[in-house]
């Protein structure tokens, strides 16, 4: 067997599991195409303990990476394309063509951005439509942009874009914004952001690039950019392959982060372990618990 533990996913859950697992002297590999996961694409983080000033997501992701390297966790920058259970453990196949065997696994694949599912979304992807303000936002200086969504991510994105875009529109599905109260105050008082309540994007139009969106109220907003921030979908495909039980689309975990399959533990956004709070700190906590449980399981 190559490793005691294979951690699949490099977000806060996977990284914390990686740190704890090595500290338990378990031979550990962490497989992920992007260490930090969504953190690296988050403009700034204000609720991570020990950071009195807001820390940029990229900076925090880099620190996570450094910590893994310093502590000696083996990192494989790759996607996992297949996983199966054998008598003695698990066989994992990666997109870079490697096969890895491990006695136990921690599934921490996290989630992907939810799409609007409207005409034009795929057609104008990269040509106006984006799912990452941190990455692509600066290309929209002095341009008109729309943010679709009502939660904290959408609000932060709109506030960030308002610093350099000509005008920011935010389309909110319901009658109210759903973010934290102080952020709602921030966005409401920003003169460069127009909030459209009870509004949904129905289609995206343009020619070479996106030129605007049609709304469910029959109106249109002309804009060069649309940032979609309507939530996340858990990436549970590998869990399903292993026969792991899901509940409401999330991996059902016990309090020790174990699943219904022996040797399979899970942590982070893909589990039902944090009462859907889905924060960096809850994912990290689940990662720590999962590593501790694997240590007890393998002993």
């Amino acid at each position: 067997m190559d490793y005691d533990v294979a951690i699949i996913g490099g977000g806060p859950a996977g990284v914390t599991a990686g740190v704890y697992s090595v500290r338990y002297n378990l031979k550990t590999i962490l497989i992920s195409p992007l260490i930090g996961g969504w953190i690296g694409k988050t403009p700034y983080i204000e609720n991570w303990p020990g950071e009195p000033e807001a820390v940029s997501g990229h900076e925090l992701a880099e620190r996570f990476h450094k910590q893994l390297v310093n502590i000696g966790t083996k990192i494989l920058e790759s996607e996992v394309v297949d996983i199966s259970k054998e008598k003695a453990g698990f066989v994992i196949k990666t997109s870079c063509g490697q096969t890895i065997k491990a006695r136990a696994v921690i599934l921490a694949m996290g989630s992907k951005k939810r799409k609007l599912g409207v005409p034009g979304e795929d057609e104008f992807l990269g040509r106006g439509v984006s799912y990452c303000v941190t990455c692509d936002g600066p290309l929209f200086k002095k341009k008109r942009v729309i943010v679709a969504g009502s939660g904290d991510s959408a609000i932060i994105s709109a506030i960030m874009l308002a610093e350099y875009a000509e005008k920011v529109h935010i389309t909110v599905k319901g009658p109210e914004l759903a973010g934290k109260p102080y952020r709602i105050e921030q966005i409401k008082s920003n003169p460069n952001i127009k909030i459209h309540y009870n509004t949904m994007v129905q289609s995206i139009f343009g020619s070479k690039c996106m030129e605007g969106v049609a709304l469910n109220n029959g109106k249109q907003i002309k804009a060069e950019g649309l940032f979609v921030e309507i939530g996340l979908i858990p990436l549970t495909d590998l869990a399903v392959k292993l026969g792991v039980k899901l509940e409401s689309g999330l991996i059902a975990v016990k309090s020790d982060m174990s699943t219904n399959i022996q040797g399979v533990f899970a942590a982070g956004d893909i589990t039902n372990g944090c009462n859907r709070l889905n924060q960096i700190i809850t994912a990290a906590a689940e990662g720590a618990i999962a590593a501790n449980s694997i240590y007890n399981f393998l002993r």
Partner: protein
Amino acid sequence: MNKVKVNKVRVFSTNACPYCHMAKDFLKQNKIEFEDINVEENEAAAEEAVKLSGQYGVPVIDVNGTIVVGFDRVRLKNLLKI
């Protein structure tokens, strides 16, 4: 005498884009020299990146005149023959 072809590589990126950092790290690891162009600080460069790629996204990587959008390790390897 054999001429050694020197690659001309430009990377258009933003400060916090993780794939931009991955692309630049990849080039550094393979000892490929490149011009690092920050489109957040250079508005004309931002316009050039959009014009070259036809897209509003980074990284935009110009390898000897061929434009690669995003961090595509395999494509970069092929273009740079590494």
